[in-house]
């Protein structure tokens, strides 16, 4: 385990070093990444300003949701980029995944360290700015638990989205044509979680409650931190589900991955 971890650090440091080779272009990359996502937030902010919020949530309350999910998705997109279905699918197709199978190292560690897209820090940065702005503009009744819960919720979302990436990567063992379907879940889930869930139609809300339980990742923790009432009268523990759902999604996705890998070895490409 320790050997695998040091190896992971070694491999990731290669990825980071090669991206830092051209410092100026790297910084520009991070910056433009932040600007691109930042602009989309500005558009949202302008609209919300004009209509005075959405579904009873004010601009900065939505910004809180938005900042949280952006930080988490950005971090995930950086750490789990090896499992990004579009990258990974290419690896399977070109046979470089076989080269990983030929090395006597845990395969998940190898996939995880095969990419580390550092410029996603731009998105994390943008999310962080939005979150800080939201917190300073909101009148939150802070407690220690709330303060501690924020990073835990973000960690939970990283696991949750990471799990979806792994599921998507696994599907490419069978077919590369369905990448779009899984992208709806990851990128769509990211979008969906940036807004209060009660603005969506019931069927969509149910889908993201019972099938892909995204609502617990951001919305319920936010209700608690912002001190808002739950319009759906879920049991009180819904507030605390985020880290567990995140870890459970990751664990389940890894089981699915193992199953897919066995299938891959029995069919080839």
């Amino acid at each position, binding site marked *: 385990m320790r*050997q695998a971890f040091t190896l992971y650090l070694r491999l990731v440091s290669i990825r980071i070093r090669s991206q830092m080779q051209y410092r100026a272009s790297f910084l520009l990359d991070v910056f433009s990444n932040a600007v691109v996502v930042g602009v989309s937030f500005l558009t949202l902010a302008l609209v919300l300003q004009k209509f005075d919020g959405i579904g009873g949530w004010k601009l900065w309350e939505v910004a809180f949701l938005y900042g949280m999910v952006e930080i988490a998705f950005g971090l995930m997109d950086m750490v789990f980029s090896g499992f990004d279905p579009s990258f990974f699918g290419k690896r399977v197709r070109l046979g470089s995944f076989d080269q990983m*199978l030929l090395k006597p*190292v845990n395969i998940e560690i190898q996939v995880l360290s095969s990419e580390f897209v550092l410029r996603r820090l731009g998105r994390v940065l943008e999310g962080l700015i939005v979150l800080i702005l939201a917190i300073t503009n909101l009148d939150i009744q802070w407690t220690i638990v709330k303060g501690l819960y924020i990073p835990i919720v973000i960690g939970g979302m990283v696991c949750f989205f990471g799990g979806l990436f792994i599921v998507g990567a696994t599907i490419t063992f069978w077919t590369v044509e369905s990448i779009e379907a899984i992208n709806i879940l990851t990128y769509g889930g990211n979008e969906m979680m940036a807004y209060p869930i009660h603005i969506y139609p019931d069927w969509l809300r149910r889908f993201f409650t019972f099938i892909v339980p995204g609502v617990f990742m951001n919305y319920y923790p936010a209700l608690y931190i912002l001190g808002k009432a739950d319009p759906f009268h879920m049991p009180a523990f819904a507030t605390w589900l985020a880290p567990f759902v995140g870890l459970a999604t990751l664990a389940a996705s890894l089981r699915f991955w193992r199953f897919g890998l066995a299938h891959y*070895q029995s069919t*080839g490409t």
Partner: protein
Amino acid sequence: MNPIITVQNLSKHFKIPRHQRGAFGALRNLFNRQFSLARAVDGVSFEIQSGALVGYIGPNGAGKSTTLKMLTGLLAPTHGQLCVNGYVPWRERRQYVGKIGAVFGQRTTLWWDLPVVESLTMLQHIYQISKNRFENNLYEFRKLLELDEFLDTPVRSLSLGQRMRADLCAALLHDPPLLFLDEPTIGLDVVAKERIRQFILHINQQHGTTIILTTHDLSDVEKLCERVMIIDKGRVLFDGDLNRLRQRFGGERQLQVDFAEAYPDLNQPGAKIVRQEGNRVTYQFDRRVVSASDLITRISSQYRILDLQVGDPAIEDTVRRIYEERLLEKVG
């Protein structure tokens, strides 16, 4: 001596989804998938002794790579038994791959954006090679493969030949008793091919490494292997020593002629037309029956020709001949 590789009745069948056409073809594909069965490897058995250098040859799509993928643990067989160096490769892949070396000619095991030497150092950590052993091996391979000129070059900027040399070094740093090479000379020029062959021979003789190599270049086999296995359509057609194969088919040569115009009858006594594409005709002849110069003189006196070329028959033609002559015997 115990064989290092035992393969019994090994098969690998692939289910290939059949695409349905028509307006709702894609939809029907989704719900009612129909498959056709491709027998990439179909009942192959052999044993390989420790220290052997075996050529596994056949035309494209014959099942060479699939066999190699099973031998290296990348694929699980559909039927049959497979035991390599005391392991069942696909079942114990992670432990197993640490004790073999493998080079798939078309791909690199090295890190694309790292200098060669750093890639090799990374492999030292991956295979947990002691510092001493690593340095000794690297020193030896650096000299033999002439790696020094590009040791600090990123892998992505290497030429194909350089990359192959670096990959060979990478595959052997951990002193594997077994080395699998898939098309190690594909796409290389004559000089580069020769250098690679010399190295393969050296590793086999000096380190006692058992080497299995696939190729569709018959001269690889002629220069390297005592034993050759010919596979086609998933089955072993010939397994035995190279001398026997050469005796049987070595007398055969080919003459390719580009005629200036189309002639009705191009048959020549002592030679057989094996291919004809437009005005380009390939004859195959036995040099013990008719010499190349006689044949050329005869043809050029009868017809107007643009160009000609004498060569050894392609492996595809040899395989076809083996088929025709039903030489399905196996020599252990």
